[in-house]
């Protein structure tokens, strides 16, 4: 995870209870107040619902009705112009051709939309150097495995089957928060000695061997019981970069890239 995304998202988990791992974070807080989500859906009803769910979950929401509009807000439409300009950082607002480039922390988009599908929007975001680090969640009323797989392969963070519920939004938010916590913890861990890492690794392995075989459910629990300052260099079990293949126990409709803490 590049330092770019850490810097831009550092403020986010500070809003979470009990976490304040970054001492000089106040400078990042000036403009932002909480998680900002860009919601994309052509259906008015769905936009209202997702907006409501996000606001209840203390997120700022910008809701648009098309992928085209989303790209425009992100400043990705006129690609050539933006690349040449100096202001291509997701942590700053800038004007380009009269538009303010939106700063978002999460994009949640419907799959089936006229014009540009959610999948196409996902691809465009992942192709962008500026925004490829931003998690993208896909929503769809159809529970099609091939579709889910395709989106996850393209880099989607999660896939929600509609109707979207509050628990879905909460889960995403928790995943984002814990992902950022881990990412910053990893950064800080690297600058410390390796002794702690090795110690933890040993006891971690011990706890693994004594717990049930299902990886996705047991390891986060033993991980969480440690003090937050000790972070193992994550084994591939719950690394946030490569997708975790869900265990066969997971419901296919709720496939997650990251483990979730239920």
């Amino acid at each position, binding site marked *: 995870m590049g330092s770019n995304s850490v810097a831009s998202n550092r403020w986010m988990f500070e809003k979470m209870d009990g976490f304040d791992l970054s001492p000089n974070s106040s400078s990042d807080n000036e403009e932002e107040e909480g998680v900002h989500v860009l919601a994309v859906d*052509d*259906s*008015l*009803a*769905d*936009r*209202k*619902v997702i907006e*409501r*769910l996000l606001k*209840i979950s203390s997120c700022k929401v910008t809701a648009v009705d098309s992928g085209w509009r989303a790209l425009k807000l992100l400043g990705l439409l006129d690609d050539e112009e933006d690349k040449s300009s100096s202001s291509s950082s997701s942590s700053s607002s800038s004007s380009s051709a009269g538009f303010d480039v939106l700063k978002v922390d999460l994009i949640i988009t419907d799959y*089936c939309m006229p014009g540009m599908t959610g999948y196409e929007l996902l691809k465009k975001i992942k192709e962008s150097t500026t925004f490829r680090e931003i998690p993208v969640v896909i929503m769809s*009323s159809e529970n099609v495995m091939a579709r889910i797989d395709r989106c996850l392969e393209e880099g989607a963070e999660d896939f929600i089957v*509609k*109707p*979207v*519920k*509050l628990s879905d939004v909460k889960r995403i938010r928790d995943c984002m928060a814990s992902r950022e916590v881990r990412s910053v913890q990893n950064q800080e861990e690297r600058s410390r000695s390796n002794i702690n890492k090795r110690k933890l690794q040993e006891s971690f392995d011990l706890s693994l061997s004594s717990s049930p075989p299902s990886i996705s459910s047991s390891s986060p629990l033993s991980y969480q019981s440690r003090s937050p300052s000790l972070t193992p260099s994550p084994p591939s079990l719950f690394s946030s970069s490569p997708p975790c293949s869900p265990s066969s126990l997971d419901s296919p409709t709720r496939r997650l890239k990251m483990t979730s803490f239920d």
Partner: protein
Amino acid sequence: MLGWGVDRLRADMSRLLAILFHQGVLDEQFLQLQQLQDESSPNFVSECKTDGYCDCRLDREFSDYKKMGIHLNQFMGSSSSIGANRVRNVCVAFRAASEQNNRAGCLRALELLEHEYCYLKNKLHELFQMEQQRVLAAGARYPLQQH
């Protein structure tokens, strides 16, 4: 006393919601959304209801089943999102008929859809009015606690 009106309204609303839930007109999705409403958006649920419905009615001629299917999908999606269970179910049947190019089936489904949609709209309107009255009555009862 006005104060008693608040409790009665609340009870009436709960009763109506329970009936609609029992009839399958509304499902858990609606109930969850209902709980998320507050004074700033007292009835956002019924605000989003009309989306897509007009499109379905325009397809009355059934000349283009594919287009109809698209509109139905949209309407089905939004119905499902707000918890309009029976409306969504009729859409499912409607879509099946249109996929088979079954004109008679589509006509029947459209009739049913109009019936269900009107019923739902009226009930949501009732709920909305009750909610409005309740807010007003609560304000009159405790004038210092005006929202």
